[in-house]
């Protein structure tokens, strides 16, 4: 019979249901965007770890290898197989190289199969490829090595994936920025909705607010009521948004599991990242509370 109720009849306001839905949608979007950003950063990290420390030497077939040359040139080059051996020897003798292995013709065919089919002609002029693993200690001077290779082995080119990695990094960073922008925009829209709801509440209940003020309620006392109300709505909406967000992520993860795992890097999140997602509704409610308080105090400052 004597349970403490809010002095302001905020619960009956139509803005309440609106706030719950706004919060649900915003928390949902925030969670999806944040999950996207986390997955992307994980992917970028794994790519980087997988690719840095690796080099590829590519030795292109020269006119002689193709059998179209006249064979009469004075400076005709050695056959591709020999040039590959030279390159391997040079690489293995270079300090800082942990391992250098040729990629076999069969392996190369396998890589091309999806695009060219299994019936590859044997005389297809494929470049020879050497997979190079750089020793962890460093000490490898990539530009110098590239220079020496190019001079000693005609048609040899050192690829350190730097350009590709740079592109990848840029892509991941851009996608992360977009996700961050989405989170910020969603947050700003949510807070704007809170300001709107609180101002509406203050306007609807201005007689009661004025009464409390005249009876000696401090601004904090009035603000607390709005805060408590908004936090309640935000938590309810946030729970809905969180639930929907987790369901979406589960569905996405399931769908990704069906796709060949080689093509799509893992979407798995660490426990800490899951926790971060779970904190989204709490952070949203906290920000909503602060915003509600700030809005009330600003409006009340205008009262005598």
């Amino acid at each position, binding site marked *: 019979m004597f349970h403490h109720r809010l002095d302001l009849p905020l619960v009956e306001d139509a803005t309440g249901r609106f706030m719950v839905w706004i919060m649900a949608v915003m928390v949902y979007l925030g969670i999806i965007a944040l999950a996207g950003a986390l997955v992307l950063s994980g992917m970028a990290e794994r790519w980087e770890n997988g690719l840095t420390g690796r080099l590829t030497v590519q030795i292109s077939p020269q006119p002689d290898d193709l059998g179209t040359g006249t064979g009469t040139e004075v400076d005709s080059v050695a056959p591709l197989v020999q040039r590959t051996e030279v390159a391997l020897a040079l690489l293995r003798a270079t300090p800082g190289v942990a391992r250098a292995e040729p990629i076999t013709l069969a392996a190369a065919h396998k890589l091309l199969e999806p695009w060219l089919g299994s019936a590859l002609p044997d005389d297809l002029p494929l470049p020879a490829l050497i997979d190079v693993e750089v020793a962890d200690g460093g000490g490898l001077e990539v530009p110098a090595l590239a220079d020496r290779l190019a001079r000693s082995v005609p048609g040899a080119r050192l690829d350190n994936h730097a350009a590709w990695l740079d592109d990848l990094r840029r892509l991941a960073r851009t996608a992360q920025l977009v996700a961050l922008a989405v989170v910020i925009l969603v947050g700003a829209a949510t807070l704007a909705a809170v300001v709107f709801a609180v101002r509406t509440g203050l306007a609807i209940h201005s007689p009661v607010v004025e009464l409390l003020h005249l*009876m000696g309620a401090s601004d904090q006392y009035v603000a607390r009521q709005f805060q408590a109300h908004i936090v309640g709505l935000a938590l309810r909406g946030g729970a809905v948004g969180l639930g929907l967000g987790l369901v979406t992520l589960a569905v996405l993860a399931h769908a990704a599991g069906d796709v060949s795992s080689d093509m799509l890097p893992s979407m798995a999140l660490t426990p800490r990242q899951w926790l971060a997602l779970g904190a989204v509704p709490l952070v949203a409610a906290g920000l909503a509370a602060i915003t509600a308080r700030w809005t009330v105090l600003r409006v009340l400052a205008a009262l005598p």
Partner: protein
Amino acid sequence: MIRFEDIGLRYGSGPEVLSRINFTLKPGSFHFLTGASGAGKSSLLRLMYLGLRPTSGTITVFGRDVASLKRAELPALRRRIGVVFQDFRLLDHLSALDNVALPLRMAGAAEAEIREHVVELLDWVGLGDHLDAKPPTLSGGQQQRVAIARSVISRPRLLLADEPTGNVDDSIGMRLLYLFEELNKLGTTVMIATHNEGLIGRFPHPRLHLDRGTLNLTPAGIGPSVAVATMAPPTPSAGLAGGVLGAGWSR
């Protein structure tokens, strides 16, 4: 307690509603504020409970010049002033109990203590059977009694009542005035605005009379003192009111 010096008031750019008002309320005094409808009684009270700032002049409340008060100092000052509004201003979604409890909650009193005092006071104003009733389900007179209970529950040092007997019959009106008298005896300064001359004539308190914005003082003792002598305190006795109000539930 309260001093008005050369107070003038206009609403916006309208005519002067109050002009050159001068008076002092001593601590523990009891005054009636009379005047025809539209004379400016409510406006004068509004100035006193700091719901309005004067256009000119100086108001001193509890020894402080109102114009010099910081905003943060106002709530504590206002909590020492009990107000019965002419239109009650009860919170319709709260029970009578919660309405009356409001000033105690604002002051941060403990729930158990609040309940005890509120129930006792509502009992005394004859609303013991309506503790959980929402104001819209109460009659005008009952709402008025809830409003009065709310204004005195925290034993304010200054009580301002705007037409507190306007919606009740004379016997209940008398009883409410006795409640204010009990409160006054406990040290609260009281000012009651009314145009019900018949009712206040039975009380020997000085009157401030507003006439077209200016104030005249009629000293104490005017009116049929016989009525005061013969008028028995309503039951339950004023002694109970003293018990209720003296229970030390001020904050």
